[in-house]
């Protein structure tokens, strides 16, 4: 019994080691609030503690990102609803989603700055999928599991995003250069 418990703890510790940072980064992108992101991720892991390990073997990462994503969007929806429906009520400051993204890097090369600037101009959906692909190293199938988009759709979105990026990086700000 105790051995089993220890296994469970090791499993959680390993999951933390591998995914904690990326998950917080991901949630912070969505919510724009690092502390909130931390709470969301903590909640994800606490939920993980209640899961049966066998059921998650092989797709733990997708499961964590999916839960994290759902919680983060739940929160955003709620926050927006609040913004819309609070007429006579004074809103507190620090509405989630407001304010600068918390994860700005201190220093970056000129090229890197341009790349990130162009990335930041993409639609949110494209940015998210690019990040899952290139930052988290997920496969199309994993991205599909996390975001709910079909695998084909993931491919289309990613392809379009990369084309836009290339076009904008290639010649300044001109959006696209159509092939004759």
């Amino acid at each position, binding site marked *: 019994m105790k051995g089993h418990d220890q296994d*469970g*703890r090791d499993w*959680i*510790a390993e999951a*933390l080691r591998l995914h*904690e*940072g*990326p998950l*917080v*980064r991901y949630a*912070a992108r969505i919510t724009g609030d*690092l*502390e*909130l992101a*931390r*709470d*969301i*991720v*903590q*909640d994800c892991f*606490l939920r993980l*503690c209640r899961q049966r390990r066998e059921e998650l073997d092989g797709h733990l990462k997708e499961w964590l990102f999916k839960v994290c994503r759902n919680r983060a969007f739940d*929160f955003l929806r*709620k926050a927006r*609803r*609040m913004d819309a429906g*609070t007429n006579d*009520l*004074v*809103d*507190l400051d*620090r509405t*989630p989603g407001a304010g600068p993204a918390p*994860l700005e*890097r201190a220093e*970056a090369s000129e*090229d*890197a700055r341009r*790349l990130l600037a162009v*990335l930041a101009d993409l639609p949110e959906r494209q940015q998210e999928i*690019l*990040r899952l*692909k*290139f*930052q988290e190293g997920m*496969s*199309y*199938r994993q991205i599909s599991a996390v975001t709910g988009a079909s695998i*084909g759709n993931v*491919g*289309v979105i*990613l*392809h*379009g995003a*990369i*084309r836009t*990026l*290339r076009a904008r*990086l290639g010649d300044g700000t001109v959006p696209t250069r159509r*092939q004759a």
Partner: protein
Amino acid sequence: MSIGKDDPRLTAYALGEMDDPADRAAFEKEIEGDPSARAEVEAIRAVAAALKGELAAEPAPGLTDAQRASVERGPHRGIPWWIVPLAAGALVAVTLAYNAARRDPEAMEVAHKERDEQAARERTWEYERRTLENTQNRRHEVLHEEPRPDAYGKDFDVEVDAVAPVVELAGDVPAGRRDPSDPEPPPPPSDTGSPPLVVESRLRVERGVPGPVLDPAAGVPVQLPGRAALLDDTASPPSPGAEAYDRTVDNPFRLVAEADTSTFSIDVDTASYANVRRFLLAEGRLPPPDAVRIEEMVNYFDYAYEPPSPGPHPFAARVEVATCPWNARHRLARIALKGRVFEMKQRPPTNLVFLLDVSGSMRPANKLPLVRQAMHLLVDQLDEGDSVGIVVYAGAAGLVLPPTPADRKAEIRAALDRLEAGGSTNGGQGIQLAYDLAAKHFIKGGVNRVILATDGDFNVGISDRGSLTRMIEEKAKSGVFLSVLGVGTGNLKDAMMEELSNKGNGNYAYLDSLKEAEKVLVRQAAGTLVTIAKDVKIQVFFNPRTVAAYRLVGYENRLLAKEDFNDDTKDAGEIGAGHSVTALYELVPAGADVPGPRVDPNPFVAAPAKPAETPVADPEALFRLRLRYKAPEGDTSTLMESDVRDGRRAFHEATADFQWAAAVASFGMALRDSPHRGGMSFPAILEIAKGAVGRDDDGTRAEFLAMVEAAQRLSAR
């Protein structure tokens, strides 16, 4: 046939996402003769590599150490994650405050005081730390007690044990008690020009309450200004930064011949006990007498009263009578009510609105941060079907979280954690908003409750007590109940908060520590949240054949006119699930001397209250106990009544719970320096209490012993 640049297969291929070997082979064949497609693939790979490199360099900050630790412990294991950083923060804050004070050259006096306060805070800190450890150790234990074998009586039993001769053993009577035939020193005059609200200064030393103080040697009220009065000329009228307690005068003995009926409202509040504990253990000084409400001290403890057997009544009532420990010629009757027990799991769906004071005065660690922790504790226990809304008030009232299903804990937690203190207090507006929200999401048949957490320092908007309490009284009619959680020191408006909870069909607890929050909101959560009976009133008809005089111990601000008992429009106290309520009467048996001054008979009236020749009641009974209560959503009351005889037990034959309650009441009287305290010294109280500790699952009784010891040390100084 060339491949269009819009073809997503280019990217899929470039990134190695073509899983099917057949697809991949076919695509490779296609691009073999298509240089532009091959160039596309290369370009995509180049962008991908750049993105990978740049994005990998983005920081991934991860959880805080405490959050990680909480995950590693798993859900519901150990202390919740948010405690550790807060506790650490409190220590840092203390140190900073101390250093700041030392650096300030203009405030040597203040610095001196700061050092004393620092020491007190360190004691608090140490106390908190121990508390946390205890909490941690206890978290998984079953938290309700099995009934003890010595629990006395059946539902609504009266004492009918074998008639023992009235033998008073010496052990019952602590040495050195005052001869009861001696005249009692007169109570301090209630009118010496001082305002009824006794204001306690933060600067005061010892028991330096400005106002009349009874000099024990002289037995005469003397004015004793103390250092406080010298340092603080703002003692009157009440100033910010002062704690306010209503003046309480102990109930006197009433002659049965003159007033044969005693009526009062029950009170399950425990705030006073926690507040007294804060003074004694955390701050190392005696509490001001008016901060001590004896009934709240007695009711703080869990007693092994048996819950009611299945039947019509939501609570059981029992009476036990034994020798009064502080006056062996008197009898002590204990009325014990025990509410039906609910597990939190069986509790009806719950609609809670937290109404949190975030004004500037709430900034210290023992206020808003503690409240936040407490709310987290409460949220921990809610689940699907329950909802939580959060309203704050400071300069303006605001909605922080609309009612949110309680299984979405991250949102609720996040909302709690974003709260910051600042601004002045407009309690009225917040109360309005919170009640509106609770009413809008009202769950019929469920628990609907506003939980107000504040130091009570309302200073903007409706801040006069009359308007606020009228407003609460009005709101309580909507069926939404109220819990008041008092926090903080320095400007605690104790009386105001108690009154609000009384008017709002509520309960009032003072949170001096996380441990207390755990008691009120975790172990006794069902009692705090689920009301099983409201407007519970007690009326006692005394039998002049057996009782010459009586005195209700405590409940001074809960007394009702005897007409109020049958008046269902008159508000009274509530009982929560599993709550126990204890009331003590000190009885002077017929034929014994009645302490206190006599009232001359009215020459126009015949001698009053002759015993009936053939009473309808049991002629040998001490009194008839009557109870009225309403169902939580009902408008008409139900009556329970029974006659109670004296079982003629000596004090040492009484149940442990009886002895414990008597010791706690004695302690309260000693702290209040009550004229009725009799010969009970602190060591005598300690001796009784030590013998009656019994099972002490949560350590509260051991803590009481520490409080008595602390009081003994402090009063000896």
